[in-house]
C-alpha cells in the first residue's frame, strides 16, 4: 500500500541546485517511488499532476512555496525519506549562535563586505540582484554578477554608480572571471602570463584562455562584462572600464576584447578606445563572417611573437569518411554553439536549425526536432527554467543523445564539454557511456554514427582534461580542444569541405 506525503512550505527558500540535489537524494532512497521537491511553479505543478499526486493538496500553492511531494512503498520508507530531506535542509542553514562571541552570519552583501571582503559574487535571482549589487558597489567592491534577467535600466544605474566608486561590474549574466588567479563562476585553471581578456561571453573567454594556456600563454585576468554590456543602451560601460584597468596594469602586455558583433556605434567606441590604449590591444567581434575564436587565439599568440601550433586533438578510433545525414549539435555554451553554427552555415550553405538560430527562418519548433542540421544551445533561458545549467546538469543532453542515436537522419553528433570550476565534476562518467551506447545503437541499425566533442578545458582543470579526452575517445568520439576545429570536422563528416 503506497504512502504519499504532500507538503507546502511558504517562503522556504532554497536555490534550484540545492533542490535538485535534494530531489535526487530522496528519489534514490530506498522504497521511494516518486519524489518532487521544487518550488510550486506552474511547470512543476504540471509535473506534480503527472505524478498523480492529489490535486487538492496544492490548490492554494504559489510559486513562492516549496512543494514537497513524496510517494513511497510504505509508511516507514516515507518517514525515512522525509527525515533524510529534513537533514539536508537543516544542514544547509546551520548557524552557530551558541556561546559567547560567535558572530552572526551576514545577511546582506553590505554586512559581509564589512568583514573584509574585496569582491562580491552574486548569483541571486535577477529580481533581487540589483539591491545586493548596489551594496557591493557602494561599499567600494567590484562585483561579478552572474544573475540574469536584470532590467537594463538597473544595469545602467549599477555601472554608473560603479564608475563613481571606482569599481568594476562584471555582468549581469556574467558566468566567468579570473582575478588574481582565482576562478570566479565557471572558470578554468590558467597559468599566469601577459594577456588580459575582456569578454562579453563566458564560454568564449573560456575557449580562448584554454587554447592560450595550451599554447603556453598565460593570462593576467579574465574580466567578464555580461552579455548586454555592448548593447546600444549600456554602451560598453564595463568593457571600456575593464580595458582601462588592464591597460594600467603593468603585467598586462596585450589586451584582448571578445564579443559577438555589437551595436555599430558601440563597436566604434570600443575600437577607438583600444587604439588609444598604451598597451597593444586586439578586439575580436566573433560571429558569422568573422574570425572564429581559435583564429583569434592564433592572432593573440602571433601578436606576442610566439609560434602558432594547431590546437591539440585526439582522433576518433575510426576513419573520417563523409556520411549522409545531418549534424546534430548539442551545446552547453551559447557562444560555442554560435561559432559552430556560423562555421556550418558558411561551409554547408544549408539551414542550421536552432533554438538560437543565425537566421529567423531557421528557428526550431517547440519540440526542438528537425530532419536536417540542427544545433541546440541547452544553456538558453527557455531550456534552463527551473533547472540547473547544462554545464552542471547533463541530463537533457544525455536524453537527446539517446534520441538522436535512434534517428536515422542523424549522421554526426557534435557537442561541447566545458571543464573547470563550477562545471560538472566528472563529465566523462555520464557522457562516455552515453556516447558509446549511442554509437552501438546506431551500429545495430547499420549506421556509422560519428561523434565529435569540443573539449574546452585546461591541463590544470580539476576534472583532468587529458583523462577526460581519453575516456571520450575510448567511447568513440574525436575530441578537440578547439571548438572551431570540432565544428569543421563535423562539417567534413557530412561531406562539406572548408572552402
Amino acid at each position, binding site marked *: 500500500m503506497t504512502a504519499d506525503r504532500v507538503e507546502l512550505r511558504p517562503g522556504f527558500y532554497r536555490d534550484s541546485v540545492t533542490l535538485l540535489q535534494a530531489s535526487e537524494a530522496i528519489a534514490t532512497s530506498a522504497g521511494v517511488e516518486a519524489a518532487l521537491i521544487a518550488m510550486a511553479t506552474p511547470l512543476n505543478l504540471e509535473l506534480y499532476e503527472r505524478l498523480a499526486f492529489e490535486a487538492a493538496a496544492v490548490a492554494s500553492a504559489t510559486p513562492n512555496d516549496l512543494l514537497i511531494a513524496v510517494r513511497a512503498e510504505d509508511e516507514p520508507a516515507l518517514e525515512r525519506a522525509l527525515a533524510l530531506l529534513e537533514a539536508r535542509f537543516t544542514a544547509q542553514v546551520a548557524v552557530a549562535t551558541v556561546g559567547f562571541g560567535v558572530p552572526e552570519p551576514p545577511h546582506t552583501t553590505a554586512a559581509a563586505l564589512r568583514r573584509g571582503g574585496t569582491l562580491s559574487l552574486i548569483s541571486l535571482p535577477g529580481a533581487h540582484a540589483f539591491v545586493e549589487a548596489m551594496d557591493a558597489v557602494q561599499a567600494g567592491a567590484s562585483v561579478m554578477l552572474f544573475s540574469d534577467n536584470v532590467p537594463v535600466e538597473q544595469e545602467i544605474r549599477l555601472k554608473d554608480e560603479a564608475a563613481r566608486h571606482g569599481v568594476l561590474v562584471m555582468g549581469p549574466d556574467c558566468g566567468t572571471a579570473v582575478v588574481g588567479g582565482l576562478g570566479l563562476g565557471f572558470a578554468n*585553471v590558467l597559468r*599566469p602570463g601577459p594577456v588580459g581578456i575582456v569578454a562579453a561571453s563566458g564560454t568564449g573567454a573560456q575557449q580562448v584562455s584554454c587554447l592560450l594556456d595550451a599554447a603556453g600563454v598565460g593570462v593576467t585576468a579574465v574580466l567578464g562584462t555580461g552579455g548586454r554590456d555592448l548593447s546600444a543602451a549600456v554602451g560598453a560601460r564595463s568593457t571600456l572600464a575593464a580595458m582601462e584597468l588592464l591597460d594600467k596594469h*603593468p603585467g598586462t602586455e596585450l589586451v584582448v576584447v571578445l564579443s559577438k558583433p555589437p551595436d555599430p556605434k558601440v563597436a566604434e567606441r570600443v575600437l577607438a578606445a583600444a587604439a588609444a590604449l598604451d598597451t597593444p590591444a586586439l578586439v575580436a567581434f566573433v560571429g558569422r563572417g568573422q574570425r572564429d575564436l581559435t583564429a583569434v587565439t592564433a592572432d593573440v599568440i602571433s601578436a606576442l611573437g610566439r609560434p602558432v601550433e594547431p590546437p591539440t586533438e585526439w582522433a576518433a578510433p575510426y576513419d573520417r569518411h563523409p556520411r549522409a545525414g545531418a549534424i546534430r549539435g548539442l551545446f552547453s555554451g551559447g557562444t560555442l554553439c554560435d561559432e559552430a553554427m556560423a562555421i556550418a552555415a558558411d561551409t554547408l550553405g544549408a539551414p542550421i536549425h536552432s533554438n538560437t538560430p543565425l537566421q529567423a527562418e531557421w528557428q526550431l519548433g517547440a519540440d526542438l526536432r528537425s530532419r536536417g542540421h540542427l544545433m541546440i544551445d541547452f544553456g538558453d533561458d527557455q531550456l534552463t527554467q527551473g533547472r540547473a545549467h547544462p554545464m552542471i546538469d547533463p541530463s537533457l543532453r544525455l536524453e537527446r543523445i539517446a534520441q538522436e542515436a535512434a534517428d536515422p537522419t542523424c549522421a554526426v553528433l557534435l557537442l561541447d564539454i566545458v571543464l573547470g570550476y563550477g562545471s560538472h565534476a566528472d563529465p566523462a562518467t555520464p557522457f562516455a557511456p552515453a556516447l558509446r551506447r549511442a554509437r552501438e545503437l546506431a551500429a545495430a541499425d547499420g549506421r556509422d554514427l560519428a561523434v565529435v566533442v569540443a573539449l574546452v578545458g585546461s*591541463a590544470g582543470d580539476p576534472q583532468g582534461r587529458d583523462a577526460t579526452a581519453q575516456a571520450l575517445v575510448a567511447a568513440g568520439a574525436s575530441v578537440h580542444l578547439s571548438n572551431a576545429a570540432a565544428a569543421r570536422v563535423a562539417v567534413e563528416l557530412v561531406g562539406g569541405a572548408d572552402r
Partner: protein
Amino acid sequence: MAQRRFFPGWASTSIGGVITGSVRTGTVIADGPAASYVALPEDDDTPDLLLGLLAPDAVRLPIGMCVLEGPLPPRGTTVHVGEGHIVAGRHTWQPVRWWDPRPRLDVAALFAHADLLIDAVDAEPAGSFGLPLPVALAVAGALAHADAHPAYGVLGLGPGLTPTGDDIVAGACAVLAIAGRLDDSLRAALDAHAHTRTTALSAALVAAAGRGEMIPQAARLLASVAAGEPRADVAAAARSLFAVGSTSGHDLAAGLAGALKAAS
C-alpha cells in the same frame, strides 16, 4: 572515473614543469612550521632539485607550492612529484592556481625611479640589516658590474636557513636578471659557489633569483618603484618586504637597491 580526493595547492610556475612532468621521487629533507622542503635527485651530478611545500601564511618562495589545505609532511617523508600532483605520504595536492614569481616590469621605468627604492632602504635603522648596509650595497653593486668576488665573501654568512649574505646576493641577482644585466657565466659561477657554501634552500633561492624569480613582496616593491608611486606607497610596499623573516626582508631589499643603483 572515480573522483580523486586531493588538497588544493597554489604553485609557483617556476616548479610547474616539475609538477606536470613525469613522476619523480624525493624526500622531505627539512621541515618547520612555515614549510617542508623536498629534495628531488637529478639524473646527473647536479645538485638535487629543491621544492618547498609552504604553509598558507608563509612567505611564497619562488620554488614552492602553498598547501592551502592539509598538513605539511615531516622530515623523512617520501614524496612523488609529477603528472599534475604532489603526493607526500597519504596526502595528495593538486595546484588549483599558479603565480609567476618573475615579475613583468618596465625596466626603463624601474631605473628611472631607482632613487625611490634606494631612499626607502636608506631610511631604515642600521640594526635592521643582517650585514651593515654599506657592505650589502657594495656586494650588490659589484655584482652589477659583473664582479662576483665580494659575493663569494658573503655567501653562506649568517645564521639562518637563508643566510644574510645569500639574501643580499639573491636580491641583487633578481633585479639584474629582470633587467637583462646578469650574464650567464656570472650566474653559473654564483650557483656553483652557492651550492657548496650554503644551505640547500638558500642555494636554490639564489639560483631562482638568477632566473629573475623573487618573493611577492619584493616583486610588489619593484612594481611600486617602476610605477613611480608616491613615496608613502613605496614605503608601504617596502614595509611589507622588511617584515619578512628577521633580517631577510631588509637584506633582500639592500641587494635590490644596491644592484639597481649601480646599474642605473
